[in-house]
């Protein structure tokens, strides 16, 4: 059994229960349990939620794998894969070792919304049991890099 892992908010904004994400794949926790953030408008720097290695980096989503073998997915907006990277700038490279809070992607939140898509960012504990996640951030604003949830 691993030690509990604190997962940090990758973007600043307003916290949302995962169930309010406008995509059933995330809302029904099909990808795993976690939380979500409705980000502040404008340019956003999305950071690593945990310390580890970026095992997958797309402009719109990334997975960081911790030393204890836990993967956290950050998905920037909903259906943003359709943008094929437009409005997103990589600040890191797949395979990089990162510490929690380090910048990974710079993206234009307002442009995502102007394109008719949701900018809500699910933050997911991949392959975790449904009851493994305990929220640390309350409802309301969260700063980037603040504690978001604990993965038991």
């Amino acid at each position, binding site marked *: 059994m691993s030690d509990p892992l604190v997962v940090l908010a990758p973007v600043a904004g307003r916290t949302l229960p995962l169930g309010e994400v406008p995509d059933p*794949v995330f809302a029904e926790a099909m990808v795993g349990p976690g939380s979500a953030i409705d980000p502040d408008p404008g340019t956003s720097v999305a950071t690593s939620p945990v310390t580890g290695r970026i095992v*997958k980096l797309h402009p719109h989503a990334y*997975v960081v*794998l911790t030393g204890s073998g836990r993967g956290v*997915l950050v998905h920037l907006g909903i259906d943003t894969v359709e943008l094929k990277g437009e409005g997103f700038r990589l600040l890191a490279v797949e395979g990089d070792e990162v510490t929690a809070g380090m910048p990974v992607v710079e993206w234009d939140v307002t442009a995502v919304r102007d394109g008719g898509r949701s900018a809500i960012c699910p933050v997911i504990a*991949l392959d975790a049991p449904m009851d493994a996640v305990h929220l640390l951030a309350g409802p309301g604003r969260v700063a980037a890099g603040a504690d978001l949830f604990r993965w038991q």
Partner: protein
Amino acid sequence: MAECTVTTPAGVGLHARPAALFARAAAKASEEVTVSRPGGEPVNAKSILSVLSLDVRGGQEIVLRAAGDDGQVVLDSLVAVIRDSG
């Protein structure tokens, strides 16, 4: 061990939504299910982390393997998920 090779439809491949459906379908299997690129290292198909890390894009070939008596049934369901992911 039941095995088959399938090509993902053109499109974005096994990203979040299809990967979740794929891993969910694989998780129903009683025994081991793996997915790999042809000739590549098989990864656990029941793990969304593993499936996402494989980063299968549209129009790519993947090899599915399922052990156990229900292996072929599992493979059929996974092929259906992949076919619908385009």
